[in-house]
């Protein structure tokens, strides 16, 4: 064997794989004799968070086993083929989301923080766990994190009174005062990942132009700062942080133009009319983004709180939100559970796809951790206790599935966040209202 130090960029090979098949990591792609730590052969860890609104029917959700997932519950049935990668964690709680609202179900899911009751611009929450991870493990990639959602239309009057809509719609906050908007349009996501097309020379030129535009923004914004009070100066500092962040992204994109061709994935033109098609496309894009190592941290709101979407495709014509106020009517609960199961089946689609995508010495699923769940427990009562929560993926050898962790007492969801952070390589002593870690998951 001839030892050569010339590594073939893996993304060169993404061309032609389409959306379903991926190319295995060829030997030629591992630079000879270099430390494995800096190559794809020691795969990076990825973290994903998926949010579903308005809790679940916890009776049909909770797996029957004491500590094993050998037998799945009705709602979790779609996970059958990947259950060895999945752990259910039962009796998690978001204490700071009380008094129960839709706004705080969404906002506390990843922050575990109390949302300041305001409809003005002085909203205040907490830095979310994905953003803490992004600051640690996201800095080497073009996008430190990717925020995705499903709702494109502008809706008014459907946020909880007293709370600005930023709480109910944004899962991800990079600081207590900085909600990150999500993207739901598949084409925009694609363009953020792979650029707007054109030849390599054109792309380079566009990126250079953008870099100089940012220079300009930076100097102009700095100029704005003069003569401002301290709170307004803080605002300007946040703007400058954003400028620097985008500069960094453009630099990475620039160095990547030559060796990172756009994958041969049909550039999405519009938004699929069917919900499931749209969701699956958003999952496909996540797989592409992780596979090409454009980002390592993803959040995805699979539907928003108070959504009145009706899932006719599975025979449920009643809208979701009113169904969740079921008044303990068994028929309504059964219908709600069907929706819960449907959402899980979409998650299963992602997991199966990650599993089918080779990555280094295993699959993408082996090297990822996804948390799936809701910030609400029983939606009929708007409570935030006994949340439906799953953890999936191999976490790069740090996580084993097929288990059921069952707490007797309500336990802060922050404990789980802290545990997953640690497994992703982010060490913290505490997070939000955490009281420890999920011991059962610590020892693989």
């Amino acid at each position, binding site marked *: 064997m001839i030892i050569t130090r010339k590594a073939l960029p893996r993304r060169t090979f993404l061309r032609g794989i389409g959306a379903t098949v991926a190319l295995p990591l060829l030997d030629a792609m591992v630079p000879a004799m270099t430390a494995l730590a800096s190559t794809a052969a020691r795969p990076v860890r990825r973290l994903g968070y998926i949010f579903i609104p308005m809790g679940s029917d916890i009776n049909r959700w909770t797996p029957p086993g004491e500590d094993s997932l050998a037998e799945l519950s009705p709602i979790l049935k779609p996970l059958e083929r990947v259950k060895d990668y999945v752990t259910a964690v039962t009796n998690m709680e978001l204490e700071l989301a*009380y*008094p*129960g*609202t839709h706004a705080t179900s969404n906002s506390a899911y990843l922050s575990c923080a109390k949302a300041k009751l305001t*409809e*003005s*611009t002085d*909203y205040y929450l907490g830095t979310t766990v994905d953003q803490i991870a992004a600051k640690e493990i996201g800095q080497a990639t073009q996008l430190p994190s990717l*925020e995705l959602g499903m709702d494109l*239309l*502008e*809706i*008014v*009057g459907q*946020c909880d*009174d*007293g*709370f*600005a*809509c*930023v709480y109910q*719609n944004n899962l991800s906050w990079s600081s207590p005062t*900085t909600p*990150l*908007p999500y*993207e739901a*349009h598949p084409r*925009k996501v694609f363009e*953020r990942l792979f650029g707007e097309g*054109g*030849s390599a020379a*054109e792309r380079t030129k566009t990126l250079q*132009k953008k870099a*100089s*535009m940012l220079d*300009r*923004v930076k*100097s*102009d914004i700095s100029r704005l700062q003069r*003569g*401002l009070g301290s*709170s*307004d100066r803080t*605002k300007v500092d946040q*703007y400058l942080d*954003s*400028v620097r962040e*985008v500069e960094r992204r453009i630099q990475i994109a620039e160095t990547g133009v030559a060796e990172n061709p756009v994958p041969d994935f049909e550039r999405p*033109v*519009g938004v699929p009319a069917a919900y499931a098609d749209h969701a699956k496309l958003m999952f496909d894009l996540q797989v592409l983004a992780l596979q090409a190592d454009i980002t390592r941290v993803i959040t995805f709101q699979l539907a928003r709180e108070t959504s*009145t979407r*009706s899932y*006719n495709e599975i025979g449920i014509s009643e809208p979701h939100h009113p169904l969740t106020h079921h*008044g*303990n*009517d068994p*028929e309504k609960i059964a219908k709600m559970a069907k929706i819960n199961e449907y959402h899980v089946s979409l998650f299963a689609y992602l997991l199966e796809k990650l599993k089918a995508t080779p990555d280094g010495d295993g699959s993408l699923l082996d090297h990822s951790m996804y948390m799936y769940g809701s910030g609400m427990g029983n939606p009929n*009562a*708007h*409570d935030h206790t006994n949340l439906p929560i799953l953890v999936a993926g191999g976490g790069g050898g740090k996580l084993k599935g097929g288990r059921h962790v069952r707490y007797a007492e309500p336990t802060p969801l922050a404990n789980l966040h802290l545990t997953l952070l640690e497994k992703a390589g982010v060490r913290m002593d505490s997070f939000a209202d955490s009281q420890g870690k999920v011991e059962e998951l610590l020892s693989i």
Partner: protein
Amino acid sequence: MGGLALDLVSAHGVEENSETWEKVVRKLRARQMPPVGSPRPDDATYEAVVSSLEVSLDRAAEAQTNPGRTDTFRRLTRTEYQNAIRDLLALELDLSSVLPRDESSQGFDNITVTGLSPALLESYVSAADKISRLAVGRPVSSLAVDTIKMKPDLTQEFPFDGLPAGTRGGTLFPHTFPLDGEYEVVVRLARDRDEQVAGLRQVHQVEIILDRERVALFDVVPPKHVGDHSAVDDHLKARIPVKAGPHQVGVTFLKKPWGVLETDRKPYHAHFNAYRHPRVQPALHEVTITGPYDAKGPGDTPSRQRIFECQPAGATQQAAEEEDACVRRILTTLMRRAYRRPVTERDFESPLEFYRRGLSDDGFEAGVEMALSSILVSPEFLFRVERDPAGTPPNTAYEISDLELASRLSFFLWSSIPDDELLNDAIQGSLRKPEVLEQHVKRMLKDRRSRTLLTNFASQWLHLRNLESVNPDMRLFPSFDDNLRQAMRRETELLLESTIREDRSVLDLLSSDYTYLNERLAKHYGIPHVYGSWFRRVKLDGDTPRGGLLRHGSILTVTSYNTRTSPVIRGHWVLENLMGVPPPPAPADVPALEDKTIDGSLAVRERLIQHRSNPACSGCHSLMDPLGFSLENYDAVGRWRQAEAEQPIDASGNFPGGARFKGVSGLEKALIDRPDMFVGTLVEKLLTYSLGRVVEHYDAPAVRKIVRDGRPERFRFASLIVGITKSKPFQMRRSL
């Protein structure tokens, strides 16, 4: 109620406790105090107490002005950005796939706009690059691909408003072509789940129209081999030469000579669903425009006319000097409009640097394009900045500058940048003169740009925006399709527009004796003798259940679930948007509900009665539900009904503890009988929208003054708008 403990507040301390007392006034006005069941004063006593409190509160406000404080930095919303590009560059674009949507608060999306996330900044940079290229029309090597998809529930059996007579279905849309050249237009037909082109049983003809001219005509023929439709529309593509700039593109079907559809079984107007109400004839699925091929240059577009006030002459000795003068002229005009202020020497530094870079690479026009892109990412364009003047003592009310006032006016009335007339008066310092201000307001209301008061303000105030996401259940409401959805929206917009254009009383919005209908909506309402797809004003007689806003299909639909009406949502909507007393958030002890929940199988009214017997719920539901009940004669898509599930409708409702009424006319009359409440709510909504901040208790005296001053003119629309623009919150700001 709502945590309001009056025993802690001395009735003498109105001045010191204005926040609490404003709440009291509001609750008393809506008769929500004392709680239902307690002894209540008569109406005369209510009015006397309210007005004496108001006098004290207004006097206190007079003594110490608090105009509130707008945020120092407020970025343009997507709507504002889009309009600003239109007015700056004569370029009409749909930026919904370029910029992210805005989050709303207090019902409007222009309040929480102080943030600038990395993703948003990236979008602004991309947008500036795309827009400047399109506006200047510089040749590029790559092709642009745009796809226009039809809504899946668009019925295409009937003529489409705006397309030529003798056609049916299809679409007409504006499209901006970047360069002179050839473009390929590809048409795809709608398929059902079996990949068959729905309704293709005989030969149909499709035509492509460019600015009212037919540019291509095709036959669509059913396949010889039954079942395989994969290639039936492969030939529907044409390469057509197009001049750069905005054009109207249409794709439609020629109407078959016979008028009656082969639809004996299903007498619906909607035809889009394969199983329930299938398409009878083929329909358009999407149109893709790709180009330019063989580009011939930038052409002569409105954008280029707007930008290139001058063109430097050829390569003479003075060329460089001339070029320099010309680019300065161009940039002066652009920056003055984009930044909404006079241009200073400093402003030229950066755009000129960009200009020179483009100039040396690709010539003069490339230079202008570069300079333009740098203007479009300037924070002075992207943000509306209002600063405290140097030396202002803290916490002091001051008058905002004339230029800031000009921007407040134009973003309020047009959701866009000021025009030159407005800027000129601001620069000359005359804008604040009451007669000048009033003349500008009236001029601006007449201008077409004020349509944003419908499409931006009212669509949020009345939740019309939500119509797009409403999908009534297909089995229960088989006649609902996108055609009906758009017709509903149009009716409400046209009623509002006539109120503005004819400067009518805003009370007419509730009691209008006319409305706007086309055939589709008239059929839905059961009103005869309205034919054709175009809208016309229809005078209504007294007992038609149509007219005012509360009788509009649009509003009745957005306040329903997709399977049934919701008196709770409708009641909430009335309280929030017409009465200004939104119910407080759900109480803290909602979890306690679980044990006390009610039998889900009961009828809605019964269920809600049980609901209200729970003290945790009754506080708010006794306010919401009775209002919603009065609208129960309208079903979930706004059709009139006398019965539901063979039970006669009981449309009796009431204000809490007070006026009882029956049906929509009863509710309307109850609202109109207390005009201050409805008009005050509308003024508050307009003020929120115009300032882009939450309206607070200290704004209440200003709202009352606007309502008072509008009364002699019977609350004509313009009188309220003028009142707002002259009010202290609009003209002033409080320093930090």
